[in-house]
Every structure is written in structure tokens, then in C-alpha cells.
């Protein structure tokens, strides 16, 4: 393999990893953008989504159905969490919601372990094809992840920019009180954001499940730290910023871990990036001053 091919292969690897991070970061950023709440339990949604995807796949043997079903069901769960857990807490200091979110995440992880057992479960959907292109090796799963992520980006952009519901979300994110006076149902809009964000997290969970052929109760642990780092790096609620931060993190950690001998964990690298960025640009990559 030539150096160029190796480098291109590394970028491909990094983009796959970054795409998955982006699926986590976008939902988190949407929720933070509209509620100013750090939704730690979002990592739990990601794990629940992976389990639901596996469960549906086992019963239907259709990956498309399993993915769609997992996204819808996780989205509904996200909506319920907003209604039952967060909405009653919004009149209290934000720290209350943050603590509740941490507790909720721990409960979700434990629930998954109790119901499905502590071991990893294989999530093998039979995408075993590997393609060789210009010296690059591209696994079929990479195509699914990169293609799926791109589709989610486009659909989300269209939804936010071209639909009334998207307009409502943007309005509530800018100024909830003004949006309310304009006749927008703020509660319903916030719940919709939880639905969409959780559904996208489920997409990320299912993708990770098939990428590593493993679904396990603590799979959200890494994501919980990293997701928080990404929304800060991205600019506190900026969707584009979070996506850019996710891809940058994917590339950054791939290069650092591959070309240095520092045994820093991936979470460690994310936190390091976070600290450096806060020192250099406190408002995040695409955040406003």
C-alpha cells in the first residue's frame, strides 16, 4: 500500500467514525439548543435504539424495518421522557434537569443489562461485502453508515428549513416566549425535538451495533462524554457546528491514536480537544460571541 492509499484509507475510517459521532451530537445539540439542558440520557437513547434495532431485526429479518422501527420507537421514548421527566423540571434551576438526566442514563443502562443480560449481543445483518476501489478497502457497512448519515443530514436540513414544524423549532430555539405569543405550541415543539433527536440517536446506535457487531448495555458510556464535548466544541446548540466538530473529532482521534504512541482513550482525546477549544475559542467552533 502506498502512503497516499494508507492516508486515504485512514480518512475513510475517520469519516465513518465521525459520522456516527455526528448522529449523537446533532440530537444533543438540538435538545440543548431548544431547552438549554445537557441531556446526558441521550446516550441511553442511543443504546436503547441499538437494542430495539436488534430486537426488531431478530423478529423481522429486515434491516430496513428494524432501523426504521428502532428510530420511531426510540423517538417516542424520547418524547415521553421530555413529557414525564424534563417538562416538570423546567421551572427549576437547570442543574436539576442535569442531575435527573444523569440518573436517567444510569437507569437506562441498568435496565438494558437486567432485561437483555450483561454480555454483548451480536448484531449481524449480513452486510459482509467488501469493495476494493483504487486500492482502498471499503466495507459494505461503511457505505451504509456514510450513506445513511448523509441522508439524515439532508432530511434534517429539509425538515428544519422547509417545513412549518421546522420553522417552529427554529423559532422556539431563538425565543420561546416570542414563539408562544406567535401561536406556536412550545411544549409540542420541544417534544418534537426530543422525538427527532432520539430517533437520530437510535440511528447512530444501530449503525454502531452493525459496525462492531455488538450491542451491549454500557455502549452509551463513551458517547455520553463525547457527546457533551461535541456540543461544546460545536458551539452550544449549533447543529452545523456539532456535525463539523464530530467529523473533526473522528479525524483527530484517528490520526492521534494511529500516529502517536500516547495511549490516550478516545474520550480523553475528545476532552483534550474540548479544553483546547475552550481556551482558544470559548464560544465553540460555530457558536456566537
Amino acid at each position, binding site marked *: *500500500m502506498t502512503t497516499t492509499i*494508507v492516508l486515504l*484509507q*485512514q480518512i475513510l*475510517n*475517520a469519516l*465513518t*467514525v465521525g459520522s456516527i459521532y455526528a448522529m449523537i451530537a446533532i440530537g444533543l445539540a438540538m435538545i440543548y439548543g431548544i431547552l438549554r439542558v445537557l441531556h446526558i440520557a441521550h446516550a441511553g437513547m442511543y443504546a436503547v435504539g441499538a*437494542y430495539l434495532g*436488534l*430486537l426488531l431485526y*431478530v423478529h423481522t429479518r429486515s434491516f430496513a424495518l428494524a432501523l426504521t422501527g428502532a428510530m420511531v420507537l426510540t423517538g417516542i421514548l424520547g418524547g415521553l421522557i421530555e413529557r414525564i421527566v424534563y417538562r416538570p423540571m423546567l421551572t427549576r434551576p437547570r442543574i436539576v434537569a442535569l442531575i435527573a438526566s444523569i440518573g436517567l442514563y444510569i437507569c437506562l443502562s*441498568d435496565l438494558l*443489562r*437486567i*432485561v*437483555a*443480560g*450483561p*454480555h*454483548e*449481543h*451480536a448484531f*449481524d445483518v449480513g452486510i*459482509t461485502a*467488501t469493495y476494493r476501489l483504487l486500492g482502498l*478497502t471499503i*466495507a459494505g457497512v461503511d457505505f451504509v453508515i456514510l450513506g445513511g448519515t448523509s441522508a439524515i443530514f439532508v432530511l434534517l436540513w429539509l425538515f428544519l428549513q422547509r417545513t412549518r414544524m421546522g420553522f417552529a423549532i427554529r423559532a422556539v430555539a431563538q425565543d420561546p416566549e416570542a414563539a408562544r405569543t406567535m401561536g406556536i405550541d412550545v411544549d409540542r415543539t420541544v417534544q418534537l425535538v426530543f422525538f427527532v433527536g432520539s430517533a437520530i440517536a437510535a440511528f447512530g446506535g444501530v449503525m454502531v451495533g452493525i459496525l*462492531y*457487531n*455488538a450491542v*451491549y*448495555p*454500557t455502549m452509551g*458510556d*463513551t458517547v455520553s462524554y463525547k457527546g457533551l464535548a461535541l456540543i461544546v466544541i460545536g458551539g452550544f446548540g449549533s447543529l452545523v457546528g456539532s456535525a463539523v466538530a464530530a467529523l473533526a473529532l473522528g479525524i483527530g482521534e*484517528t490520526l492521534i*491514536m*494511529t500516529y502517536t*504512541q500516547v*495511549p*490516550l*482513550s*478516545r474520550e*480523553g482525546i475528545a476532552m483534550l480537544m474540548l479544553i483546547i477549544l475552550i481556551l482558544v475559542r470559548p464560544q465553540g467552533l460555530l457558536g456566537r460571541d
Partner: protein
Amino acid sequence: MITRRALLQGLGALSLADLGLVLLPSAASGQAAIKLGFFGPLTGRFSGVGTEARHGAEFAVREANEVGGIGGRKVELVVYDDRGDRKEAVSVVRKAMEADRVIAFNGGSLSLTSIAAAPVISEAKIPMVAAYSNAVGVVKGNDHVFRWCSVADVQGWVMAHHAVGKKGAKTFAMFVQDEEYGRGIANGVERGISKLDGTVAYKKLFSPGEKEFRAFLTEVKALSVDAVCASAFGGSLTALCRQGWDLGVFPKAQFYGSCTMTEIDWFEGIGAAGEGAIAVLEFIQTAPDPGTAAFVQRWQKAYNTSIVSHQAGLTYDATRLLLDAVKRGGPTPAGIQGALHDTKNFKNLSGMTVSFTELREPVLPLAVGQWEGKLKNFKLLEFATDPALIDPRPWYQYYK
């Protein structure tokens, strides 16, 4: 896939262990039960490992109680969850000694947690048998701690000798999980390769639990090494091997993994990849000994699975050894300690006879097994029995 077994195991994991309760708490005869302590990660990231170990320990205790216990007294297993956390391990072993008055420990935990708990146990003069903790520091300097698996370095040493001697490998890539267990195996591999005039062309350290190896494997692919030696927990080994398969690194290069390749994660997750991958194992369920086969049958009946994982097999065996020591030395910490010291030619679960050295380390024959997709298990290639390969004593010099 989520099976009924997994569901039941999960529900089981919540019950007694989480609450720090016990298995078979009372003695039918009216005599107080013999209390043995068990600690391991039953929740958190490594809960799969700990749950398997607990099953192994419980099974051995159940079998002992089914034949009347020891000297007419039932055996209780006091189970504690250390969550794979060093501080928690120290806390739970203190509780087991002070509140539950256990007379010995079956250490069903990871190297990193056993290292933290072992000095506390040893200071209290309570004997412990480490079932699957491979790091030297678990036993070294803790004069009441014994080990019933191999020293990590020995596994690496055997791995390197097999790769060079049997597979003709000359250039190597190494993947090292950066904690006591992974570093120990890497030490053995590296020294073996160096002694046998091989070359380590690539070495990568990573943190426990890592699952993304494709960037590293891309580098390895460009180097065209003969063999890849990896030390990690089961989930990471499985991910590493699968991803190497996808990228075409394996089977061109021979994959070697440490004993954790027989964790459940491998059996569940390796799928169509991994054919021909080699593991150096302390327990192999395809060993030709009739005792091994009979055990596997009993296990299958009890747990409705034909897979006996690394931790389950070793912890079963360590508990069996501990129970035997209680029989031989009497149900006191001092008696058990003496009996463990005197253990000679104890037949282990793979059918090999094992004795302790003066360092409380076993001279344990290691199985070299090869993954067969059709068999869905590791076929025994050979047992490494040469003392020059498996003696744990020379490795102590590297750990001050």
C-alpha cells in the same frame, strides 16, 4: 441475539449479587455454613465477565452442596459486586471479611481490581485463590493470595514460541491493552520474539474497552507482518479480529489472542470471521479428558448453553480447588492456607495436573487452541507443558 437465557441471566444478575446476598445461606444440619467470599464486576462495563465468573463459582458450590457439603456443613458463597472498580473491590472485600466473616476468597475479578483487593485480604490473613487475574502483582507480595490461572507474561511467552516455532512467523504486530493484564502478556510476547530473533514491526497500546481498530489495522496491512499478537478483553479481541478480517489483514497474517478469547463476546460476536485464529488458553472445553467433557455436559444442563467461557471455567476450577483445600486443611483461614500451599498434582478442568510453586503460582500447562467456525469453538492444537515455557517464576524479576 437476545435469548431467553440472556434474559434470565440478566434478571439473575439483579437479584442476589446486586444486594450482596448469598447463595444457599443456611445449613441443613444446623451447623453454621462455611462462608466463602466472591467478588467480581457484576454491573458496569465488565459485568459480562463477572457474571460468567459468578456462574462458575456458584456451580462449584452447588455441586459441593449436592453431595452434602464439606464435613456435613453446607457451603455459602457470599457474592459481592466490585463494579470493576479498584476502590469498590477494596470496600467489598473488607465488608465480606468484617461483616460476613468469610474464611477464604475466590477472587472472581479482573487483574486491575484484584491487585487493589489482594493486599487487604492478605493483611487480614484470609486466603484467596485468584481465578482469572493474570497480572503478577495480584499474587506477588501478598502471601495469602494464590493463583489458579497463568501469569500473563507466560501466555505471551507461549504465544511467541508457538508463532515462531510452529507458524514460522518472523515479523509481528502487537496490540496491547494498556493495563496490567495486557501489559503482562505483551511483555512475554516481546521477550519471546526478541529471544527467537523475530521483529516487532508495529506495536499499539490502547485503552480497555476499545472497539475501533481499523486505523491501526490499516497501518499493519501496509507492513505485511506474519503474525498479530493481541492482548485485550474479549470484546476488543473480537472487534480487532473482525475488523482485520474485513480489511484483509487476516488470515494472511496469523492472529494470536490471549486467554480472554474464550469470553462470551468472542463466541457471540466473531461471526463468519476468525477462522484459524489461535488463542493461548488456561481452560479449553474441547480438551480430550473425560472429566472435561462430563463437566461441559453438566454445565449445559444447568445453564442451557454449550459455551463454557474462560471466566466460568476458571472460576469453577478455582472454587473446586478452594473447596478441596477446606476439606484437606479444615474450615479455618490458617487450615486453608496450609492446604493450598501443599497442593500437588491437582487435576484441573482441562485434565492437566497442576502443582503450586513456592511463589503460590501454579505451573500450569497452557492450551493452544484454534478457532473453528464449524465447531463454533476452539480446537485443541496442543498443550504447552515444557517447564521452560510455562514456569511463572522467571517473570517475577520484571515486577518490583
